[in-house]
């Protein structure tokens, strides 16, 4: 069987889709969810079922591309859509890499090695079965670098423009990748110098020649500038336009990145910060200098990649850019732990570099053996990193996957949602999806739920008696209760400002309390459905 033929690749991809779906659905049945997938589920529900300013939710929910990717699968199952998207997406990633191998190397061995990674690497399984957007980041990160390397080789506009398009999509998959552009600024000059038609081969002498000849200098400046424009104008213009849209529709340029209504990161970052500030033990592995070392340990194949590219300085620099990028992220977002996806990009980049340069290797047998050993090494450290991750969600994934026990992390949200589902159809509920998106994600019918994307939310907040029958309030134990108005203080303040209105607890969990809004005239007895957990 020749794996490099298109038909076999398609079959392998299909098998992987099934494999990932089994993993994803298995985890889903155990109750595994994460913040990101819950956020997408909730926003998709608003887009398809909500009534109110859906345009804002549709256009300003970030990251945009992963959100839209879940749309496609919402028709199958709203709560399973992110998992379906990530499972299919990860298989697509396999196909993309495998077809690149097919085009460049006529050797099944590299496909088998890739298959080992895609079957057993915990990072890949996490990517595929978690419902997170990592699969999109990896796909477009891979395509971005692939086209960049192709551009280095062919010097054609086509590849550099495709690379730019991939960068745009990458940024709209994870806004932090905008910082990647920062490190390409010096590199572009190096690329331009290399592309000038000069007899001299050494970079430094090429630079010397270019700067000392007026015509070459002009050409260098023009070309460098043009390359900047071609590579970065599209991402920058896209971000600028997106920011303007945020300004016109949400009166805030950075709404998409800073509002908990627009993105799930905000809340998670705050939690991460809380964890750091309350943790007495300093997290040694996240020390700046050690971060790159951790990456090398996680994906040692990158060392082989650097070795293969050793003859071209600017191409080695290209490989080193992601290192600078994560170091930068660590400094800029010092209150946030580096998520697993930023390690995963090295896994993909390393394999890309290897397949791009494998044709230069003389002894393929030994080389593949070396790669196999490296991959085994990567599998071990992949498990180790995920199991001991500083991000609770990632640790939880391994726990649920390996222990085969129900995940209770989202149980509170599910219980409250079940309670809301049991309410009569005409009962209106006030909820703030800045933190309660987990509840809304499990709610069957969101039409009676009044949320901030609707115009009447503020009125309902001010006069709940006139708009809603129930209010979902975060308890003091809820670690993110400080990020919503609908917490215990709200109940007290309304009782204080509108004496005629009162609230009766009808349902309570550790994190949430559901109150029934009552006017003093209609105040009744204890609700039989009250369950105290």
């Amino acid at each position: 069987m020749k794996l490099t033929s298109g038909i076999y690749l398609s079959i392998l991809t299909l098998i992987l889709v099934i494999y990932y779906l089994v993993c994803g659905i298995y985890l889903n049945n155990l109750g595994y969810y994460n913040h990101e997938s819950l956020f997408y589920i909730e926003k998709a529900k608003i887009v398809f079922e909500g009534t109110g300013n859906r345009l804002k939710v549709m256009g300003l929910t970030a990251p945009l591309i992963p959100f839209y990717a879940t749309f496609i699968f919402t028709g199958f199952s709203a709560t399973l859509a992110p998992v379906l998207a990530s499972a299919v997406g990860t298989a697509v990633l396999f196909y993309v890499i495998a077809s690149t191998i097919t085009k460049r190397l006529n050797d099944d061995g590299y496909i088998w090695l890739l298959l080992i990674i895609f079957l057993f690497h915990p990072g890949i399984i996490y990517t595929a079965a978690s419902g997170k957007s990592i699969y999109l980041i990896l796909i477009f990160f891979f395509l971005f670098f692939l086209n960049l390397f192709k551009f280095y080789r062919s010097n054609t506009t086509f590849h550099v423009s495709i690379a730019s398009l991939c960068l745009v999509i990458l940024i709209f998959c994870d806004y932090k990748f905008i910082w990647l552009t920062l490190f390409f600024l010096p590199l572009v000059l190096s690329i331009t110098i290399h592309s000038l038609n000069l007899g001299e081969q050494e970079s430094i002498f090429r630079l010397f020649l270019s700067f000392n000849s007026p015509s070459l200098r002009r050409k260098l400046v023009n070309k460098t500038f043009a390359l900047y424009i071609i590579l970065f104008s599209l991402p920058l213009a896209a971000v600028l336009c997106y920011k303007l849209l945020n300004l016109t529709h949400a009166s805030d340029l950075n709404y998409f990145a800073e509002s908990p209504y627009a993105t799930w990161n905000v809340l998670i970052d705050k939690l991460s910060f809380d964890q750091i500030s309350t943790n007495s033990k300093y997290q040694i592995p996240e020390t700046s200098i050690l971060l790159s070392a951790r990456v090398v340990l996680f994906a040692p194949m990158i060392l082989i990649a650097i070795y293969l590219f050793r003859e071209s300085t600017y191409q080695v620099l290209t490989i080193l850019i992601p290192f600078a990028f994560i170091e930068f992220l660590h400094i800029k977002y010092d209150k946030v732990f580096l998520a697993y996806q930023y390690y995963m990009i090295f896994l993909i980049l390393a394999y890309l570099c290897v397949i791009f340069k494998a044709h230069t290797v003389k002894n393929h047998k030994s080389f593949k053996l070396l790669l196999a050993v490296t991959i085994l090494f990567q599998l071990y450290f992949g498990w180790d990193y995920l199991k001991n991750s500083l991000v609770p969600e990632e640790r939880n994934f391994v726990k649920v996957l390996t222990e085969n026990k129900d995940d209770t992390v989202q149980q509170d949200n599910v219980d409250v949602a079940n309670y809301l589902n049991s309410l009569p159809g005409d009962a209106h509920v006030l909820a703030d999806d800045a933190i309660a998106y987990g509840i809304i994600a499990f709610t069957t019918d969101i039409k009676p739920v009044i949320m901030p994307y609707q115009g009447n939310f503020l009125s309902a907040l001010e006069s709940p008696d006139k708009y809603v029958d129930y209010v979902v309030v975060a308890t003091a134990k809820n670690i993110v209760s400080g990020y919503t108005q609908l917490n215990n203080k709200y109940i007290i303040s309304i009782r204080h400002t509108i004496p005629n209105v009162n609230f009766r607890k009808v349902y309570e969990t550790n994190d949430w309390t559901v109150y029934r809004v009552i006017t003093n005239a209609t105040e009744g007895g204890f609700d039989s459905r009250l369950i105290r957990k």
Partner: protein
Amino acid sequence: MRISIPELLTNDGFITAGDREAIEQHSAASGLSYIKIALTSGYISRKNYDRSIQNAGYQIHEHPRDEAYDQDVLDKIDLTFAHDRLAMPLRIENGKVVVLMASPDDDLFIDFIRFTYDMEPEIILASDLDITWLSNKLLGEKYTKSAVFELMKRDPDSSAVVTFSTTQLIVIFVIIALVTIGLVLSFKNTSIIINVIISSFFLVAIIFKLFLALVGSRFELHQAVTKEELKLVVDDELPIYTILLPVYKEDKLIKKLIWNLQSIDYPRHKLDIKLLIEEDDDKTFNAVKNLDFPAIFEVIVVPFHMPKTKPKACNYGLHFARGKYLTIYDAEDIPDTDQLKKVVSLFGKLPDEYICIQSALNYFNRNENFLTRMFTLEYSYWFDYMLPGLDTLDIPIPLGGTSNHFKLDELVDLGAWDPFNVTEDADLGVRAYAKGYKIAIINSTTYEEANNEPFNWIRQRSRWIKGYMQTYLVHMRDPVALWKEIGWKGFLGFNFFIGATPITFLVYPLLLTFFICYVVFDLSTIRTLFPDWVLFMSIFNLMVGNILMIYINMIAVFKRRYYELILFAIANPIYWLMHSISAYKGLYQLIVKPFYWEKTNHGLSKVNSPTNVVK
């Protein structure tokens, strides 16, 4: 004793013995008179010829156009023969046939006179140009009628002589009526439906164009004809190549034209270059007459007949074309010097169904002003990305105005250009596909003069857009038949490329006004006409559409290495507004004077245009 013109010219030192032999060989092979080859293949200038003739004691008649003529006498000679010999009979006088001749020693023509009229000729020596003018004027009616009506007679469905068919008029008026009734009955819902249709249309158009550009940009990696293949071309095996040069009041460009033509790398005796001058265009005519160096083209005077369009002139010139292949250049064009050889090589490689090869067009005066920069951006994107994209996807290619190279026989078979269509080239491209032929794109560029004057630009663009509308209407008379002829890909491509272009430009200013009102005046009432998801789509179109179109323009000039133009791509939205002005002008003209040819003035550029020698 009669003199021999070749001998006279050799004795006077105007022609070398080698040239004389070459001309005689060429004359024997082609059937053209000696003097015709000498004057039109760059051997001797007209002034020198006149000088030689006059020194030999001959008198050249300065005003042969005033001479009386007899129609019965004229009826016995065919225009092509008069053309080939540069001579024509006028009348019978005193038992002799009065003839105009450019060279008094043309025995073949003298024998023809003797044989046909059974009389001796009385020769009046005249300038070859005057004879050409007079012969075309007096003998060209049959050819003119053919140039104008041939397509209409042979294939009336493909002729734009009827702008709107009855069915099309009914459809248009029914749509207008429905929209009006809808707006009166329910303004909001009708507006929403219109918005949905426009937004969906724009969305598909944007995605289609991006896709085309990406497909086309891969063409960058492919060389239709490589340098190695070009080296294999043997000069002696090259076929005769006809070049048509339709001009109108281009007197300033004639000298430039000669320089450009002389740079073409193709055996001189295998070039059949025809300068097509309108009958009333004395300016160009006199400019050619006053040339003081050898010309390498033959003049053909196109007799007056409406419509006075470029395709009519080309159709007329086609009757005299001798080449196996034929191309059209504008007077100011500077083709890559190896273009003709590349085309011959590519035709040799392509299957027989390929009857036309389009070269890329670009501009030599790109840095002259804002308009020329924008024009260059547009052409780089059009010819380097869009047309190769269409080519790859097997969608009808709207040919560019010049530098399209045809197989002559197939072109004639196709019905040649439609003289009633003002973008006859685009129409011909679609017609070729409809008849089962194919068009290829070649990696060779012709540099033209970009319009550098706004009003001149609008005139030219309004004609192009009007022509697109004409072409669309002609081929959409029977959409089902078109679908069957060019397939679904071709049909959709035709609709989104030819049909969508004028509509996009017509709608663009309206949508822009909506958007500006929405942003500046905060007209929240507009929201009622744009439900959330329609507004979402509209904003997506506006943002993503504009950015992508600008970006594609950027990468097109990047590919051409015109780095200095990249930032000008940002000004595209302003440039598109100029398109919109032209589109409205074109629409108005389509209704009131559909065949009117908005003349573009050339030669306005002050930029020197060095020949584009390909090494």
